[in-house]
């Protein structure tokens, strides 16, 4: 195996421009694959954030403190709809705590607001985004509820967006992988043709097809591994460079910067994909020749 690897490295050294073109296209495709993966993972995290947020807030009048009987009655009627997932009563005091935590950096706002100024509310998470409208209507009909606010199908819209990102990503990455495979096939194919006499000699002295193919497959894998490392490095640099911008938008929604474990998983994925595409390209190129 070491011998085949050495042979592959030697051949790469002898045709640096072919190697450069193969590594460039591999890097481009793997960078694209990595970018779409990061985009999909980020979107997934955002979706998960919104899924765990209350989707409907039903506010009592500001000057009213609902009795436990009133609260229980509304909650039990809500439960009867069988469309709710989580229902939570938020008292005026709890609302103040939330307000304080959200405005902890602004003492002026904190001083001006007391619990009596904030309304008590009921937070509802629906089982399905489709039920949001019905539940909001239901709560509006409640006598003691003054105002109902809900993010109209944010989760649904996000889900559709993620699906589109995945679909477009899969198609684009698929096309690029196919192009990369073809380029590797071509580059290794040229080398196989250049070494026709050598391969024929190997066959005549009793080399097996696996022995003959191994250096060419290794060559393809090297293109994949080098391309994978470069694509990962570029992705990581872009993420780190964009941290300021990303943090201003996504603080509290997703963990930034991504953990090193996550980035290492991405690296493993890119190396795996690159090796697979490169190795297969090399294998097919030499197999086509041996079949002749």
């Amino acid at each position: 195996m070491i011998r085949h690897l050495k042979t592959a490295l030697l051949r790469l050294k002898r045709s640096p421009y072919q190697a450069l073109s193969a590594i460039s296209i591999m890097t481009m495709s793997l960078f694209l694959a990595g970018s779409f993966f990061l985009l999909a993972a980020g979107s997934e995290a955002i979706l998960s954030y919104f899924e765990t947020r209350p989707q409907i807030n039903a506010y009592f009048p500001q000057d009213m403190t609902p009795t436990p009987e009133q609260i229980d009655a509304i909650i039990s009627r809500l439960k009867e709809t069988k469309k709710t997932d989580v229902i939570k009563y938020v008292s005026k005091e709890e609302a103040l705590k939330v307000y304080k935590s959200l405005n902890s950096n602004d003492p002026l706002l904190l001083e001006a607001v007391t619990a009596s100024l904030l309304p008590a509310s009921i937070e509802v998470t629906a089982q399905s985004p489709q039920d949001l409208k019905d539940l909001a209507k239901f709560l509006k009909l409640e006598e003691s509820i003054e105002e109902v606010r809900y993010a109209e199908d944010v989760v649904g819209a996000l889900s559709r967006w993620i699906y589109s990102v995945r679909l477009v990503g899969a198609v684009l990455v698929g096309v690029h992988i196919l192009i990369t495979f073809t380029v590797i096939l071509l580059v290794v194919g040229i080398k196989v043709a250049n070494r026709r006499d050598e391969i024929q000699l190997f066959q005549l002295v009793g080399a097996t097809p696996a022995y003959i193919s191994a250096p060419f497959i290794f060559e393809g894998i090297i293109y994949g591994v080098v391309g994978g490392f470069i694509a990962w490095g570029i992705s990581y640099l872009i993420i780190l460079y964009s941290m300021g911008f990303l943090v201003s938008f996504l603080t509290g929604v997703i963990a930034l910067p991504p953990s090193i474990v996550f980035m290492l998983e991405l690296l493993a994925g890119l190396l795996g994909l690159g090796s697979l595409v490169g190795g297969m390209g090399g294998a097919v190129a030499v197999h086509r020749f041996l079949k002749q």
Partner: protein
Amino acid sequence: MVTTLGLTKKFGDIRALSDVTLTISEGEFVFLTGPSGSGKTTFLRLILRDLKSDAGTLKVGGQDVSQISQSKLPQYRRQIGAVYQDFKLLADRNIRENVALPLEVRGVHPDKYTSPVKVAMELVGLGSKAQMFPAQLSGGELQRVSLARAIVGKPKLLLADEPTGNLDPKTARSIVKLLREIHSQLKTTVIMATHNADIVNASVQRVITLEEGKVIKDSPKGKYD
């Protein structure tokens, strides 16, 4: 060692070998002669299964060559050593690495082939040139390397296709002498294709003469006609 019965090979409409029937026994040294295009190389390529016959049978060591599957072909070829007119050496490998090639492709560890490679190289008189590259050697030396490579795996059968074709008469004689020594020392069956009359006539050996793909003469102590 080699038995053929009605062996025929065609390239399009041209019959390169036509109904060849002969037997070469184990340990024999045979000259295969005839003019260019008479079918000598085709015969050797059929033995190596570098080509497939169109009709007839060819058995090597009792094994029907046409029945050997692709997966068993490398194993079969490892029993045969071959020497070519153009040497077929790898320019980017040194002499030692070229000689070691048949053992390397068998998966023999480099530590284990040091000794057989050294023996083969000393047998052909190139023990001191192990680290040199093909470009640094003369034609005669290159053919010696080719011979060392052919015998390093201790083959049962040695095929030599015009091994003296690119050499001057003196060097050619030394290569044939070397082939004889290998034949007598290793007891290998040798089939040497040549159209060099001087070489054939200088020895008393079995001579099989081909013409237009047919065996026209097979004499135990023949001369080149």
